[in-house]
């Protein structure tokens, strides 16, 4: 037995020694981070840049970096709906963002490019959280553009972003609840203004009874609640419906039985297209109203001619009379062969705003970006309507308060709740196409 027990002892000792050596080696590589490190959580290997004011060249970083050279791109993250029920928005966002990246990288941010890592939220809260986890904790981005859908944005904020320094700016969230979270910025204005506008519109058109159906999620619920609050007349039918159902004939027939002549739809394109087809083949007639998400090419392509003529929709809108929007629209048309939607404009502005915030910040960290992101587009400072102009102001030595970026979707100007100033447009469907008939300032 002795030789075996000797082997045993040796083996055990060997294990212990290896373990000890391993721990020792690790300990040797350890140090604490209490000397002004880039405090962003979980960031590893990301560029710790300094706040050079438009000069090229020296990083001036503190040796703990990955020795990344000064031409590495700034990486920020984006959670987008590439798949799932909101994927149409995701596509529009991507177009807007890509156009913005072209603009930004033509000039660069202090000689460096901007790169956006995009992850898919699958239009689900859970997917959004997982996507954000990866972006914040694995890729270590200090700035997160996300997400599409108010519920998803809130879930990401509460689960991943809150308590960190990461800046979150949602490109497409109109639910009312985001107003309660000042740390969560959004580029699309709150739906409250839409609900108010709809309520006024319906009342002005002479309808004192309305039947409502809304999509059963945060967006639908919050807009409907705000509408019901604001509306003076009687809401004779108010019922949610699930997303992605094959058929909504039950809801439609109930709306018809309610006797109201004004029907309000707060839902998404796919669901609305289904409803329109069912209304058409059931022969119902009513005056339709809708919130922003029921409008779009998907609906027009998938519904028969004349089925929604006369419908009025309130959409958040880019100021389409403004010059910068015109040039954005023509660039967009050149690039993609179609007119931009306001959703593309929001995403575009998110990227530009992020780029400017990075340029104006002292370092590429969440804390520093929090300081600048609101101010570069805030009301103080010289108005600039393009990235080029705004970047120039910063390059000439200006600080974040010296520039006021006017976005293609509006003046932006985040308020203390992180909501932008909004423009609304009232669209009417005429000859199966959308025509703007009115503008409302939020």
């Amino acid at each position, binding site marked *: 037995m002795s030789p075996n027990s000797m082997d045993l002892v040796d083996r055990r000792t060997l294990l212990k020694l290896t373990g000890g050596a391993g721990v020792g080696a690790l300990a040797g590589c350890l140090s604490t981070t209490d000397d002004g490190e880039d405090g962003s959580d979980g960031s590893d290997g990301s560029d710790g840049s300094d706040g050079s004011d438009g000069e090229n060249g020296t990083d001036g970083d503190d040796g703990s970096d990955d020795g990344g050279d000064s031409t590495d791109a700034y990486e920020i993250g984006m959670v987008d709906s590439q798949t799932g029920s909101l994927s149409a928005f995701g596509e529009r966002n991507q177009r807007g963002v890509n156009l913005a990246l072209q603009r930004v990288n033509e000039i660069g941010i202090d000689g460096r490019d901007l790169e956006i890592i995009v992850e898919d939220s699958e239009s689900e809260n859970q997917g959004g959280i997982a996507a954000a986890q990866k972006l914040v904790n694995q890729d270590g981005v200090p700035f997160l553009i996300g997400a599409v859908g108010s519920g998803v944005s809130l879930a990401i904020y509460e689960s991943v972003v809150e308590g960190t320094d990461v800046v979150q700016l949602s490109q497409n969230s109109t639910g009312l609840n985001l107003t309660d979270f000042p740390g969560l910025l959004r580029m699309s204005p709150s739906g409250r203004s839409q609900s108010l506008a709809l309520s006024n519109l319906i009342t002005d058109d002479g309808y004192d009874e309305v039947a409502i159906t809304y999509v059963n999620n945060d967006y639908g619920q919050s807009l409907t609640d705000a509408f019901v609050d604001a509306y003076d007349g009687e809401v004779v039918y108010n019922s949610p419906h699930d997303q992605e159902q094959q058929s909504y004939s*039950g809801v439609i027939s109930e709306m018809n039985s309610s006797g109201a002549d004004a029907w309000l739809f707060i839902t998404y394109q796919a669901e609305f*297209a289904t409803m329109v087809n069912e209304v058409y083949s*059931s022969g119902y007639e009513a005056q339709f109203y809708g919130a922003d998400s029921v409008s779009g090419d998907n609906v027009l392509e998938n519904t028969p001619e004349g089925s929604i003529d006369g419908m009025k929709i309130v959409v958040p809108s880019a100021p389409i009379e403004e010059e910068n929007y015109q040039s954005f629209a023509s660039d967009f048309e050149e690039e993609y062969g179609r007119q931009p939607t306001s959703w593309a404009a929001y995403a575009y502005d998110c990227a530009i705003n992020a780029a400017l915030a990075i340029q104006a910040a002292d370092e590429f960290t969440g804390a520093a970006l929090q300081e600048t992101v609101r101010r570069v587009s805030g009301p103080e400072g010289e108005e600039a309507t393009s990235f080029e102009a705004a970047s120039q102001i910063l390059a000439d030595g200006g600080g974040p308060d010296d520039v006021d970026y006017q976005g293609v979707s509006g003046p932006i100007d985040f308020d203390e709740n992180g909501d932008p100033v909004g423009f609304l447009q009232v669209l009417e469907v005429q000859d199966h196409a959308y025509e703007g008939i009115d503008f409302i300032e939020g």
Partner: protein
Amino acid sequence: MTVLGYLANGLVFSSIIVLGSIGLSLVYSIADFANFAHGDTMTIGAYTALVTFGAVGGLGGAVLGLPYGFFLALVVGIAVAAVVAVGTEKLIYEPLDVDSIGLLITSIGIAFIYRAVIQIRFGSGFTRFDIQPLRPIESLVPYGVRVTLHDVAIVGSAAVLVVGLHVLLQYTDLGRKMRAMADNPDLARVSGIRTKRVKLWTWVIGAGLAGAGGVFLGLFNQLSPRMGFNLLLVIFAAVILGGIGSVYGAMAGGFLIGMINQLTPFFSNVVEALPIAPNWLETVLENLISIEYANAIAFVIMVVVLLVRPNGIAGEGAT
């Protein structure tokens, strides 16, 4: 909408469910396992028809508002669904050496594969057939019935297929063999019936009917990769209600479940109108019998049937 109107809608929806439930019941009784890929077989039929219709177009005339090309696409959809099912049976199910539970689990994997392939090819959103939607039939509108010619076509085609199946089962050789196998597989084999051959034909018929159901579902509502799977549980409810192993039971079950599903708004009105004694009971019933729970009602019925009369309306022994 009047009761008549709900009944009419129920008839149309039932036609689709019946096409699905017959197929499922056939496979259940002869291949002896619960085929969870049945819903996605419907999806395959629907998308095949979409592609075919897109390729051939209208082909001139139309009947009942549906161009001839659509009927051609329907036939192709049926055929492809059948082929895919037979292929799956030969390649996957037959070589497997597992019991019926193992086959059930495998069929779930197959369902995912079908759905994934369709989603990869067509994306995850909705599409429709490129057919002009119609207005409801004028003469029926005063009765509160709002159906279009398309709906008539769906009911008519389903009726034709079902009658055809009945004829097959009762008056042909193959039908007799199928009924024999469903009754007693061992005896059938002993008496010289080529069970493998009959099984294949069962798959062809079952999947073909499912494919037809899928095409009509796409016409009635829309097409999406999840369309079949979403309907699968409702079809299971229909099959169980009708009694597993009985084709006629499946027809009855499909008809009933389809009706109940579309009549839910009507029931909801009835419940609201009735004065029900304990207040809490009234609130609970009002909440639960509403269109959000239309599918749930079918599931509950299914569970109740399983508890009370597992054989269903017309089925054979459950154990």
